């Protein structure tokens, strides 16, 4: 048995305390997590373009209210200077603070890559543990909004391949709250990937911290396991619903943390079902699905009923035109087709 958290646990625990979990959007859940974290610890800081209230609390409103409540010394709107934003966060972290830096969209994270890769992820190791970089980088992405080639890429694979940084990606408001609290409390740098398609769907938020490194069985099943994160979890649950009507029992594992990922939970699930599909919105080639599929295959050699199926975006930039954009990214249909292939 693994100590994976199941979907019902958190709600059960909230219910057992007699609390009716409030429904809120992911935007509001993150906003609340930031408020609560800043309240709980005066070392928590927020910085990024437009994050303060004079700038409307972020272009998406995720940081609304923070500077009014905690002051503009702790909540700083920055110039458009991604290298300096991450550099400032690293310096503040090394100096004992817990900054939460926003890189508005994931594509812009290519700008401060040096700061993240050569510095944030490495300072603890290179200093032999004398310093550490307890910072969070919030960023957002997701195709489907006709923003074209430079505004909706998923790049989690770059960071999963980078020693010294953790990568988390919530698929629900509850996870967004819990993972944000855990990320801020974590002594190491955490990349926190938000996804725009999930921003405005309200769902219950229990306000529990969610451990980094643990996956969640979002739906139990016995015939095949779908492993995913972010929007892919939502799509996979829809596929599971649809296939249930045909008598196919689909288990859905929400990674929650992409790196270091919960091998134990994933292996336990696939050991049970014997079949796996890994889905991500990033380009399929050399995406995180390859690592997960490889480890499943290594660990369950001889036990799998077929090769692990991988689902990912087409090998091209995100196209603008609607029909192309739709065909580019994995959809419920693409995932369903992969599940059927796994079952074949």
């Amino acid at each position, binding site marked *: 048995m693994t100590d994976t958290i199941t979907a019902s646990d958190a709600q059960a625990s909230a219910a057992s305390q007699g609390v009716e979990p409030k429904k809120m959007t992911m935007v509001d859940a993150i906003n609340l997590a930031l408020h609560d974290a800043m309240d709980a610890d005066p070392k928590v800081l927020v910085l990024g373009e437009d994050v303060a209230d004079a700038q409307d609390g972020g272009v998406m409103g995720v940081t609304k209210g923070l500077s009014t409540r905690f002051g503009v010394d702790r909540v700083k709107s920055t110039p458009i200077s991604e290298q300096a934003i991450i550099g400032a966060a690293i310096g503040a972290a090394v100096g004992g603070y817990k900054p939460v830096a926003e890189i508005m969209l994931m594509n812009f994270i290519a700008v401060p890559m040096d700061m993240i890769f050569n510095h944030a992820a490495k300072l603890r190791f290179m200093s032999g543990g004398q310093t550490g970089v307890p910072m969070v980088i919030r960023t957002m992405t997701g195709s489907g909004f006709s923003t074209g080639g430079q505004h909706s890429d998923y790049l989690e694979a770059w960071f999963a391949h980078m020693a010294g940084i953790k990568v988390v990606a919530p698929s629900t408001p509850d996870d967004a709250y819990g993972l944000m609290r855990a990320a801020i409390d974590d002594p190491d740098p955490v990349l926190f990937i938000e996804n725009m398609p999930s921003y405005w769907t309200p769902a219950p938020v229990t306000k529990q911290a969610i451990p980094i490194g643990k996956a969640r069985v979002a739906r139990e099943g016995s015939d095949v396991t779908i492993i995913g994160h972010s929007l892919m979890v939502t799509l996979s649950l829809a596929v599971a619903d649809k296939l249930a009507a045909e008598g196919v029992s689909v288990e859905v594992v929400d990674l929650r943390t992409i790196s270091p990922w919960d091998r134990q939970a994933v292996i336990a699930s696939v050991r049970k079902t014997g079949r796996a599909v890994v889905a991500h919105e990033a380009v399929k080639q050399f995406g995180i699905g390859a690592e997960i599929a490889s480890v499943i295959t290594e660990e369950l050699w001889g036990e799998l009923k077929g090769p692990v199926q991988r689902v990912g975006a087409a090998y091209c930039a995100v*196209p603008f035109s609607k029909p192309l954009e739709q065909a580019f990214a994995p959809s419920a249909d693409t995932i369903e087709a992969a599940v059927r292939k796994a079952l074949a």
Partner: protein
Amino acid sequence: MSNWPKPDAATLLEIYRKATLIKQNDEHVIKQMMAGKLVMPYYSPRGQEIIPSAISVSLDDDDYICTIYRGIHDMLAKGFPLDEMWAELAGKVTGTCKGKGGPMHLTCPEKGMMVTTGIVGSSMPIATGLGWAAKLDGRNRVSVANFGDGATNIGAFHESMNMAAVWKLPVIFLCQNNHYAEHTAPEYSRAIDRISDRAAAYGMPGVTVDGNDPDEMYGAAKVAIERARAGEGPTLIEAMTFRFNGHIFGEAGHYMDKSIYAEAQTKDPMPILRARLLSEGIATEADLVAIEKEVDSRIVAAIEAAMAADFPDVAELKRDVFAEEIA
């Protein structure tokens, strides 16, 4: 400045024609978006019409420009074909990029419109490279990098300004200072007043002009272009202006200071230039109405053609990734 060249009457009229195209095009885009017929992020250039109009009259198709998400005005002034632009906005296969680029990546090499980027600051290093190409070509070509005031705080600005100056490249760095960078007013992003003062850090001439004034804008642009064509190197022009429709279509604009906005509106360049053309006798009301009508009908035709055209085939996902189609 007093010794700068001034646009003659015909040039002023040409500037008005370009600016009118930009303004009316903007109105049509907004109308189509409100009607739900165009779905895209839209960064309106309303208020910034004079800047590209007054520089483009001194540029040829052969000259390069790079611009940004808020760049439709730069492209229209440079002669970007309307039909292909509208088809691209509508995501159609008849679009200039076959619908694959969309509004943030409009490209038209025949008109010298080489790169449109959605990444702040990134027009500058690429325009610098085009300036290097232009210099090697030996054809007196120039390369114009368009960018906003907010972009002057990013590293790519610094690196490319410096490189262009050291290599004496024929580049015009055209900063369209519309006061805001998304929701950020200048006092939150730089501790100096004039962006053009940054040119001194690179040994490059820098000048601030009223970008809404065709005389100043034309003069500064002409001087910079001639300097570039003469092999004397790059120039930074800071053109003061304002964006009346906020950062992106649909935003609330709470961050904007009401008095700054109101003050800017008194400087809306379009009614000012129109009144001037009439008062200086450069055109009659009938002339201007004719221009406005002609421009409008061209736009309407482009919209109709765009709406009637086909979407690209999904096979396009495998094309143009590389020169050779992928399997």
